[in-house]
């Protein structure tokens, strides 16, 4: 009898440890993605509402948020649906809007190799916000890193899908004035920027990004400055490689590092 109860005690203890671990994981993932939740749900709702007003119901919101999953491009997509262009022109517009994502992957080549069968989804779901989180988030102790990063990517898309379907289905019924809530995404980037500014081994890349962004914003205007700004940034980073490179070699604090 004492032996039996001793055994069940051990088993119970083991289960408690297990559930502690997953509670910790769930807590960590929701904490890390909370700002994206605010931004994605409400910007997603705005998108769903816009799509519904263009004559495409919740089914289209679900489809596009599942297979396109690109915030700003989906707003452009509404315009393409109401005012159809040729498929080639559609492809070119998409390329211009989304080519920035090709640069994001450069930071993830090594890291994503470790994701094996989850790697295709990690690549597919690499939005601005997910990329920013993957670059900056620190995996809490006692949590499996790849599971943690994968759940961040997955949850972010869930927020976006849920927001856009809800927006298309009953966006017009919402009485809560959510105007301004999308600032959460701006604030998220600002917080990551501040954190990187304080901890980066070199601040030159951040300065290059701001300078290139502002210069191209003045030159090309708000709607088309991002691709040239990225090109200028890459060029400046390559030119400054001798000054910056050796300082970045030991980047152990970011999610990008192994």
């Amino acid at each position, binding site marked *: 009898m004492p032996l039996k109860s001793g055994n069940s005690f051990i088993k119970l203890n083991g289960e408690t440890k297990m559930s502690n671990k997953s509670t910790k994981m769930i807590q960590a993932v929701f904490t890390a993605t909370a700002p994206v939740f605010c931004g994605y749900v409400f910007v997603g709702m705005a998108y769903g509402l816009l799509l519904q007003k263009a004559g495409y119901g919740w089914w289209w919101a679900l489809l596009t948020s599942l297979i396109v999953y690109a915030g700003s491009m989906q707003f452009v997509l509404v315009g393409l649906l109401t005012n159809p262009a040729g498929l080639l022109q559609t492809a070119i517009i998409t390329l211009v809007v989304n080519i920035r994502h090709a640069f994001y992957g450069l930071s993830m080549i090594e890291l994503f190799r470790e994701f094996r069968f989850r790697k295709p989804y990690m690549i597919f779901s690499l939005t601005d916000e997910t990329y920013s989180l993957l670059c900056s988030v620190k995996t809490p102790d006692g949590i499996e890193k790849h599971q943690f990063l994968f759940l961040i990517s997955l949850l972010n898309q869930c927020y976006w899908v849920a927001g856009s379907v809800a927006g298309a289905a009953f966006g017009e019924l919402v009485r809560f004035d959510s105007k301004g809530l999308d600032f959460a995404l701006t604030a998220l980037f600002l917080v990551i920027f501040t954190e990187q500014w304080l901890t980066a081994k070199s601040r030159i890349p951040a300065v290059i*990004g701001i300078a290139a962004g502002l210069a191209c914003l003045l030159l090309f205007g708000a709607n088309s400055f991002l691709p040239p700004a990225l090109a200028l940034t890459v060029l400046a980073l390559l030119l400054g490689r001798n000054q910056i490179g050796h300082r970045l070699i030991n980047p152990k604090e970011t999610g990008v590092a192994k």
Partner: protein
Amino acid sequence: MNDSALAIVCTVAAVTVFCRALPFLFFHGSRPIPPAVTYLGLALPYAVISLLVVYCLRGIDLSASPFGAPELIASVLTVLVHLWKRNNLLSIGVATAAYMLMVQFLFR
């Protein structure tokens, strides 16, 4: 009409995933990554976050009332709260609430 809409959606989806997959298509398998690319991979996150901050604030009109005041005030507030407590959710929550109050009541 729905057929052409579906074709448009699929085109946008395909080009988007192509953009995201490009570096992985290029450096797949155990193909060695050139040092310049590894370096860019390390340096770009810092530069890209800065660019995204500029991107988020690109719509500010400094030539007309309210001269970007809600965005600029909320941005400064984000950084100040973050320097004070270094707590992501606190910085983002306070700044977003302040921004919503400003655009809904103060600068409408």
